[in-house]
């Protein structure tokens, strides 16, 4: 809300500076967002009077006004005609600076004497646009006739406009009077109410208008006043200036008067051309089926049954509180006006305004809930303004319907409650003074305080509200700093799992940079995680349908792949979709973070050729029927093709075991016995065939990793191989055996034996390892793989595996013979079971 500061001054008598008032109001909760100083850039622009107007000798569309600035007379050349001799105008002599009205950007230009069609112009009569007051460039700004000659324009126009950022709880603050009340309370001055006393015989008992309210819940009060002998025309400068400064466009006398009173008192008013209201009747009701109304903006609207309308004897004439009807609009021909001042149901107005996307200054005020007491006060003031500006002659109140009058409820509280809540003591006299300054009624009964809010403060309904008023007015700077004392709480539900911190620490320790990515994504981005022709899905449902997925599951996945699709990479599920997305690029909540992470990998690839190791540890969103979605924390890591090796410029290529090392460490740190987790071949269209694995523990899928399928990588515009790792951390936690437990090792020296064997290429390392472990019992302590070889030195279809084995006994030092015996058992088992040949 924009408030001209001089208006605020007029209603409060405050003499403090605008900055001081802004600071104190801000601290009291009336936040000032900006102070606009209209004259900030005006230099040497003054109030002048048109002393004479001569015709231009060489141009009919120009004239030659001579301006009296109080100290000299200056002749200028002018192209506007909307002024007369004797008018006071805004005058810029040569040398003054003005906004260039023809520039696209705001630019200040110095005015120079110029010769126009042979006559020298030594200054300029200004329009509001050149002054930067408004965009209106038509005609010269004509000032109030009382503006003192020669006075700097900034002073003559009152200067500062204070822009408040007001909160939803204070409808009274959407008015100059409301802010004035607050300011007066803070500065200890009296509010100078602009509302005139009632006039006798204008008490709403007239029968010239009949009012009917269908439902008092939708319209608590409807008051009307008639204005006769209406003269529609331009309002005087004083009214227009204030409206413009407050950001409301002046239109014509009657409309300007209603807007002026809305700004001043906070009550929206509407003016009907009385002759167009049929049957001398005004009613308030919801629309009936089939009813229509052409509104002021020219739109022919069908009215839905919940729309609250103003009707005459025949049908709707306005959308209550939102917009008037075109047929009853006040025009130049209007002679009698019916002024409406009503209290509508805030919810009904809010819904209608939202539904029709017609939010206005009026609807904003109704939405917040206006007090019914205000309707008649606003009518009086409006009629008074209309009479003052000579736009008509009216009755203060012609008709008034107020079916169920109600007063604000008093609030009781004990004085000591204030200290109990605030942690600081206030004198009773301070409490009284603060509340009285805000015009609350006070009654005291011993330690009890009974507070009756003024009619405009229906937001105050409970002791805490009263306490806030006191604290606010005395000032929050009174509140000291203390720390809460008392008991420590029990374990809280939903407590953050510190193991989540450890997951991040482990990943960072393993070389990964943590990313925090958006949860919002697009279905298209997720669909790119399978090769494009696989689903053959339409662009509007890029994730495909159930039939397509059934086929993919059957033909492009093994059991591990299907298990991965069931939860950790559930691309066949319906994602949660937004009803109001910002764009189609983020229309759904993610089922997996992998798409976003591959994009992040791609973005970073543009400026780095190695060490692209990224992870993200944020929830995925898996819908559940009739409940909130599950939000499991899935870990998503992506890795670029090359990583640094030992020296400065050496790099290695990421291979599957690189990723497995990460998985094993992560899983082991979470308390899952890694030797019991099995890694199996994974077939899933997101991953490259033959280069991916799934990790399961006791039948539950914990993780999947591998090289990203080349087509998928290409779909993300990646120009090199990429690796991905997905970990279902909740599943890992469920598999965890808890804290690691200690097991003793042999204190006696170990006997070390190396073993290199050649086996069929299809034989897996796990099989070899398993045989070694079984055959090596009980002396074998560990068998560490240290090499794999395929190539010319061994037959085709074979591979060589080399292990370092360590043997020890718990109770003695093994002799060479004993170690050899144990080792030979291992060798024989491998030969026997796998047909392995010893190598080297």
């Amino acid at each position, binding site marked *: 809300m924009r408030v001209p500061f001089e208006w605020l001054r007029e209603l409060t008598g405050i003499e403090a500076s605008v900055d001081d008032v802004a600071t104190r109001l801000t601290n009291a909760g009336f936040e000032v967002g900006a102070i606009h100083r209209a004259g900030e850039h005006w230099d040497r622009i003054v109030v002048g009077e048109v002393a004479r107007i001569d015709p231009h000798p060489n141009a009919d569309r120009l004239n030659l006004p001579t301006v009296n600035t109080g100290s000299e007379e200056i002749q200028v050349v002018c192209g506007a005609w909307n002024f007369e001799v004797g008018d006071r105008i805004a005058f810029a002599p040569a040398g003054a600076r003005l906004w260039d009205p023809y520039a696209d950007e705001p630019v200040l230009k110095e005015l120079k004497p110029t010769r126009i069609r042979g006559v020298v112009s030594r200054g300029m009569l200004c329009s509001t646009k050149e002054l930067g007051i408004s965009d209106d460039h038509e005609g010269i700004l004509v000032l109030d006739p009382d503006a003192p000659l020669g006075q700097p324009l900034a002073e003559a126009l009152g200067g500062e406009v204070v822009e408040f950022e007001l909160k939803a709880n204070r409808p009274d603050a959407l008015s100059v009077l409301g802010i004035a009340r607050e300011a007066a309370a803070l500065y200890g001055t009296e509010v100078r109410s602009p509302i005139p006393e009632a006039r006798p015989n204008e008490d709403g008992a007239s029968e010239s208008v009949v009012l009917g309210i269908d439902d008092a819940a939708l319209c608590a009060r409807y008051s009307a006043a008639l204005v006769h002998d209406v003269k529609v025309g331009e309002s005087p400068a004083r009214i227009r200036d204030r409206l413009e400064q407050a950001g409301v466009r002046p239109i014509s006398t009657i409309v300007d008067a209603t807007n002026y009173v809305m700004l001043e008192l906070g009550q929206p008013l509407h003016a009907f051309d009385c002759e167009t209201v049929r049957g001398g009747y005004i009613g308030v009701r919801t629309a009936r089926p089939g009813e229509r109304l052409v509104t002021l903006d020219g739109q022919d609207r069908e009215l839905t049954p919940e729309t609250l309308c103003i009707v005459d004897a025949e049908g709707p004439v306005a959308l209550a509180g939102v917009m008037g009807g075109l047929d009853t609009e006040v025009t130049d021909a209007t002679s009698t006006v019916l002024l409406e001042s009503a209290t509508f149901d805030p919810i009904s107005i809010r819904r209608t305004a939202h539904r029709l996307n017609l939010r206005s200054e009026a609807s904003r005020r109704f939405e917040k809930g206006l007090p019914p007491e205000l309707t008649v006060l606003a009518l009086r003031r409006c009629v008074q303004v209309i009479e003052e500006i000579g736009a008509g002659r009216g009755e203060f109140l012609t008709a008034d319907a107020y079916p169920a009058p109600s007063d604000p409820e008093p609030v009781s509280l004990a004085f000591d409650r204030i200290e*109990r809540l605030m942690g600081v003591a206030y004198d009773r006299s301070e409490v009284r003074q603060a509340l009285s300054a805000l015009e609350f009624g006070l009654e005291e009964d011993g330690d009890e305080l009974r507070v009756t809010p003024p009619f405009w403060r229906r937001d105050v309904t409970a002791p805490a509200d009263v306490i806030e008023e006191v604290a606010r007015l005395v000032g929050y700077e009174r509140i000291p700093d*203390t720390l*809460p004392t*008392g008991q420590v709480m029990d374990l809280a539900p*939903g*407590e953050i799992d510190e193991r989540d911190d450890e997951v991040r620490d482990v990943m*960072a320790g393993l070389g990964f940079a943590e990313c925090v990515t958006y949860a919002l994504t697009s279905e298209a981005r997720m669909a790119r995680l399978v090769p494009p022709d696989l689903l053959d899905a339409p662009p509007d449902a890029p994730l495909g349908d159930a039939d397509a997925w059934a086929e993919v599951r059957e033909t492009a996945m093994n059991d591990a792949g299907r298990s991965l699709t069931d939860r950790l990479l559930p691309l066949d599920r319906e994602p949660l979709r937004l009803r109001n997305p910002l764009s189609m690029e983020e229309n759904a909540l993610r089922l997996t973070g992998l798409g976003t992470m591959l994009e992040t990998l791609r*973005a970073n690839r543009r400026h780095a050729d190695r*060490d692209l190791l990224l992870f993200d540890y944020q929830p995925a969103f898996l819908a559940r029927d009739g409940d909130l979605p599950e939000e499991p924390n899935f870990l998503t890591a992506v890795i670029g093709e090359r990583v640094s090796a030992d020296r*400065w410029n050496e790099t290695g290529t990421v291979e599957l075991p690189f990723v497995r090392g990460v998985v094993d460490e992560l899983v082991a740190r979470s308390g899952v016995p890694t030797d019991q987790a099995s890694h199996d071949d994974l077939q899933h269209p997101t991953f490259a065939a033959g280069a991916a694995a799934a990790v399961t523990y006791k039948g539950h899928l914990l993780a999947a990793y591998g090289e990203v399928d080349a087509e998928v990588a290409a779909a993300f515009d990646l120009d090199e191989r990429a690796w991905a790792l997905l970990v279902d951390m909740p599943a890992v936690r469920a598999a965890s055996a808890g804290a690691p437990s200690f097991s003793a090792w042999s204190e006696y020296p170990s006997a070390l034996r190396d073993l290199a064997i050649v086996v069929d290429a299809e034989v897996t390392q796990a099989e070899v390892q398993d045989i070694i472990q079984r055959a090596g019992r009980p002396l074998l302590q560990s068998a560490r793989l240290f090499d794999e070889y395929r190539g010319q030195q061994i037959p085709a279809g074979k591979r060589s595996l080399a292990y370092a084995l360590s043997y020890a006994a718990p109770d003695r030092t093994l002799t060479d013979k004993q170690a050899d015996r144990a080792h030979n058992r291992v060798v024989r088992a491998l030969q026997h079971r796998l047909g392995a040949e010893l190598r080297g």
Partner: protein
Amino acid sequence: MQERLDALLSAARTELAAAADDGAMEQWRVTHLGRRSEVTGLLRSVGSLPREERRAAGQAANAARRELEEAFETRQSELRRGADGAQADVTMPGYPVRLGSLHPLTRTLREIRRVLAPLGFRAVSGPEVEWDRYNFELLNIPADHPARDMWDTFHIHDKARPGELLLRTHTSPVQARVMEQIQPPVRVIVPGKVYRYEDRDASHEAEFMQVEGLAIDKHITMADLRGTLTYFVRAMFGPDRELRIRASYFPFTEPSAEAEMSCHACDGDGCPVCGGTGWIEILGSGMVHPKVLADVGYDPDVYQGFAFGMGVERIAMLKYGVTDIRSFYRNDLRFLRQLR
């Protein structure tokens, strides 16, 4: 004796100069300084010399041993510096270390948790997809209340329950969730992602992180709120920070307060960081509204307390001098490495 020692030293030195790797060095050490070395033997034999010679012989043998030890050390460090004995270029960059990094938001969140933990605040989390009831109604923001305009909301398509599922617009719904489940005393902070239907620019995000604080007991006061916030800004931004609070409005607190701290960049003199005012808005807060307490089953005549909420990105931006909030979500390694 001395002659034998001199010969031994000279031979040992020659051998030492030729030792070029760890194996040769070890062998030299065993030969010349080990238990079976000549010098050790000589030392042992001192006892069998005539009494008047023992002292001088012992000193000479010990000096020789020290000399051998020093020669060994010197050679060892020569070898470490380089085979040719040249000084290593200490300005060479280190080999690349593959150590990752935590996201600056994670680090900021952890710092906030660490700062508030000693005051008894436990960190809890809650769902990001919420019911309207928790995000609004239980926070004293009924349907069609104009205060709803304070939060532009993403709604979720849900045929079964239209209009009820949304992306939480603040972490405050977790307040209600915690209070529904346990009796006071309550002292929690709630970090987490929140969502606003809002176009992104340098200072606005559609997704961002908040931390909510809540303390409920029989006698927690607004002064306790102020004290907690003062403690917080000093712990986060240095002991010289001043806090000021002013009246504000949030539907779930009464009284409500906006908190500002004196600018850490200019100490309150005014600079671009604080927009020239010397003060920086840092969080919103207030005493929990009696209606909110009553709606979760607490007796508002018995229990009271405070709540506060802040944007984590904002804190991180102030701490690290980041000027565009979107940087946190671009995950550019150059950004992540800088703020590691």
